[in-house]
Each structure stands twice: as C-alpha cells, then as structure tokens.
C-alpha cells in the first residue's frame, strides 16, 4: 500500500513539475531559446506573489490574477529586448545571456531581499487539508489542485496553439521564420507573445511552488530549473503532453526513491533522467516539434 501511495504522490507531484517545464518547453519549441533563467523567473513570480499578497491581502490562491499578467508583460518585454538581441547574435549568445540573467536575478534577490526562505501561506482553508483513501493514502488537496492546474494549463495551451489565430502564427513561426515574414508576420512580435505565455506559466509554477514548499533566491536554479529540464528531457523536447508525462515519471521516480530511502528521493529522479538520456534521447514521446 505504501508503494501505491508513493506512485499516487509521484503522479500528483508530476503535475507541479509539468508546470515548471511547460514554459521552458514552449520557449525552446518556438524560438529555440534554452532559458537558463527559467527557474529564477519562477522564483521572481513567487516573490511578486508574496509582495502582492502582503500589500493587497488577497488570498494566496488568487494572487495569480495579478502575478500572471505582470510576468506575461515582463516576458514580452524581455523577449523583445534582451532575448531577441541575443537571438540575433546566435544560439550560444542566447544561452550565455539567459545564464547571465539567471545569475543577475539570483544575486539581485540575495542583495535586495535576503537569503531567507519564504512560502506563500494559503491560510486556513480546505486547500491545506487532505483526504484519505483507505488508511495509508493521504492526498493533499493542494497537490491535487496543482495537478489540475497543470492539466488545465496544458489543455489550454494545446487548444490555443491549435485553434487560435495567434496559436497558428506561433506554430508557423516555429516552423519557418522567414516564410512567416513573407506572409506578413512580424516573427519578433510573435516571439514576444510566446514568451508572454511562457512567462505566464512560469508565474503559475512559482506560485504553485511557493504554496507547496518553501522558496529562497537559490530555489530557481537548484530545484525548479533542474526539475523542469529533467521533465522536458524525459518527456521529449518540444512536446506539451510529453512535458506532463515527463513530470509524472520524474515525480513517481522521486517518490519511489524516497520510499526506498528518504535520502535517495532526488537521486532516483536523476537516475531515471540519465536512463532516458542514454536509452531514449528523443524522450518518451518521440514526436516531432510541438504542434
């Protein structure tokens, strides 16, 4: 029964990891940006949420209404300025720039806030509780909610990309920037839109993590970015549903590892990650570029 519990907890945690990963996957799929600042941006999202909650006293759960638009605007702005300027100079420069951005964000948070851990207090509500199945399986409502949010985000993204006008433009630009220009599309603007969406999901990831656990300025690189990368690689680069699968596989591996030995939780996740890299480098969902 303990193993069943581990698998269920792993699947639910996988939702959180998928939320970490989908912005990373989208940015890579559309503009071939490997955003090394991804995790730090999620942490920024969490800090912004903390600030918003402190100032406005809205419930943590609803902070996304303000934080997501803020991060989306930041995403559009960063893409149109810093990231686009880097892209114009090449892939390697883009990698260096996002790495630099990561360092700047982390140092900035340490400098201007502090190294303390924070969390987004959900307060006394049903969401802090859990329900049980049988005697051994305890399912926290919060984790269930985060999983549901991840599925809704991925479904929404899928729906938006396949059916909307902007989604079609994003896919066209991801296929062939030059041909898109010949159809009158300003690919830099479309990149900006894609970045805004990616940053919106990053904000959700940050808020979800802040409610689920504690965050500090270094959480971005030592947890979120690494888990996001692992989920993306396991699931298959550029595939949205692969991201969810990757997150779930990572989550289950970690929980099973923890079941064997509490200290091996993170290690187990990375062993699976390495196995996938070695045996199936294209990821579990061997699809072509995200559609």
């Amino acid at each position, binding site marked *: 029964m303990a193993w069943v519990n581990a698998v269920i907890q792993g699947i639910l945690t996988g939702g959180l990891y998928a939320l970490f990963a989908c912005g990373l996957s989208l940015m890579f799929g559309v503009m071939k940006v490997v955003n090394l600042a991804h995790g730090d941006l999620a942490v920024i999202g969490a800090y912004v949420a903390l600030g918003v909650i402190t100032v406005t006293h809205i419930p943590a759960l609803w902070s996304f209404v303000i934080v997501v638009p803020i991060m989306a605007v930041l995403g559009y702005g960063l893409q149109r300025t810093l990231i686009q300027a880097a892209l114009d100079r090449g892939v390697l420069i883009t990698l260096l720039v996002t790495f630099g951005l990561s360092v700047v964000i982390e140092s900035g948070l340490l400098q201007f806030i502090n190294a303390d851990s924070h969390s987004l207090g959900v307060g006394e509500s049903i969401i802090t509780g859990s329900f049980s199945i049988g005697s051994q399986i305890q399912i926290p409502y919060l984790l269930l909610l985060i999983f549901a949010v991840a599925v809704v985000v991925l479904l929404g993204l899928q729906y938006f990309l396949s059916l909307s006008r902007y989604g079609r433009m994003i896919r*066209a630009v991801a*296929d062939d920037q*030059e041909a898109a220009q010949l159809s009158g599309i300003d690919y830099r603007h479309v990149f900006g839109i894609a970045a805004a969406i990616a940053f919106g999901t990053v904000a959700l990831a940050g808020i979800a993590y802040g409610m689920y656990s504690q965050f500090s300025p270094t959480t971005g690189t030592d947890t979120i970015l690494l888990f996001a990368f692992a989920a993306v690689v396991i699931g298959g680069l550029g595939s949205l549903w692969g991201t969810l699968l990757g997150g779930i596989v990572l989550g289950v591996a970690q929980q099973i590892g923890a079941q064997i030995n509490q200290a091996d939780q993170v290690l187990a996740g990375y062993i699976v990650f390495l196995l996938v890299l070695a045996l199936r480098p294209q990821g579990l969902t061997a699809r072509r570029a995200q559609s």
Partner: protein
Amino acid sequence: MSEPATERADNDSTPLLEVRDLIVHHGQLRALDRVSLRVFPGEVYAIIGANGAGKSTLLRTIAGLHRPTDGAILYDGKDMTKVRPERRATGGIVMVPEGRRLFGSLTVEENLKVGATYARKGPWTIERVYEIFAWMKDRRTQRTAQLSGGEQQSVAIGRALVANPRVLLLDELSLGLAPVIVQRIYAMLPQILSTGLTVLLVEQDVSQALRVASHIQCLLEGHTTLEGRPSEVTAEQVEAAYFGLSPAAAEGSEALWHGSTPSSRAS
C-alpha cells in the same frame, strides 16, 4: 544615376516595381553588381540565368530578406529599400520562396490561413484558391509534409495569393519538379494574371521563362547580360547571355546589353 525612364518611347505608365543599381554582398562575395529593372503593371517579368547568377538573391532582396549594400528598391514610387520584409508583404510584394518553404507542421488549410492573416483587400480568398487547385479542398486537413512536390508548390502559390499581392515574386517554381508538373503549374499563370497581378519570376528553365514572360532579363555573375521582350531576342543571344559566351553572334542586336540600365524597354 541617370533616369532610364526618360528614354522610354511609351511613358504612359510608371513602373510598379523598380530596382536601381542594386548591389548585394554575401559576405565578401558580390552577388549582385548594379542590377536594375523596372516592372510595369500586368507584366510577367522573368529573370533567367545559370546557377549562382544572382537571380534568387535579387528576388530575396526585393522581398526584403537580404539587405543591399547599395542601390534602391522602389514600389509604387515609394522607396522600400529599408522596409522590413513583413511590411513589404502586407504592402503587396509577396514572394513564393525557393523550395516552397511551407509550414511543415501545419495543414494545407492552416498554411493558407497563415498566408491570409494580414491579407490586403482583393479578389483572392482561400475558397478561390480551392477553385483553381481543385484537389486542394479535399485534402485541406492534411499536413503539407504528406503532399507531393507539385502539390506543395501549389499550396505555396496559394499561400501567397491569399495575401492579395500586387506583385507576386516567384522564385524557381520548377526546382525539383517533374517537367509535366512544372507545365501544369505554369498553365495556372493566366488565371492568376487575370486578377490583375504583376509577376516577377526567377527561372532556371529558360524555355519555360521565354514561353510565359512578357519581358526577360538575363543575369550572369551578378550582372545583367541581356534584356528585352522574348520576341526581340534570339536563342543565340540568350545562350550567349546565359553562359557568358562572346556576344559576337549577337552583334548588331539592340536587345543585347552588357550594362545594367534597363534602357531597352522601348516598345
């Protein structure tokens, strides 16, 4: 630069598209060296030449995908030289690129919809494209990767048409296609032209170009070696201009020009 228009016999119309002394570099290589041309409304203007003559570079520069070192591109009397490619497309200069360049993960219909995203007002709609390419409607939900080369080329043309261009740039339509398919695609041209389009095309297949064009211009290593109406030039002249042979065979002809000014355009 002298204004060649003053030499023209019929000055009743102004060029829709004009290229003046265009110089384009690919790194150190001078791909185009003072190439000029003037395309008038309703014309089918063909650029011919061997591989590496600079034909595609010329078309891509007109579409805005290359930045010229010097020279000017005028469209409808306005200087477009520094305008971004997407603004040229929405302004009415639309290119069918070499190699088709369809959006591979999109369906046929989605490719057309992308083409129509920022369309100008005009006669072309997705329905109209389905009318001239009859097979397309039934297969509109297929990914373009599943289509044959000729079908892909048709979708690429359709994608350009739905933007309702005034000038349609066709880059090497025949590339990689069977001759019979090429003929079929070129047979579409009159239908396309009947809606009032002007066509500037690049073609390696000289006989095909001579058949459809109302005006031809031959490039060799970035220079204009010949230009005129197909009826005015002889096969020998074309051959000489195409391969850069001695022009002796064509001596005395008014249509052979070793310069770059399109001053032979008197009709």
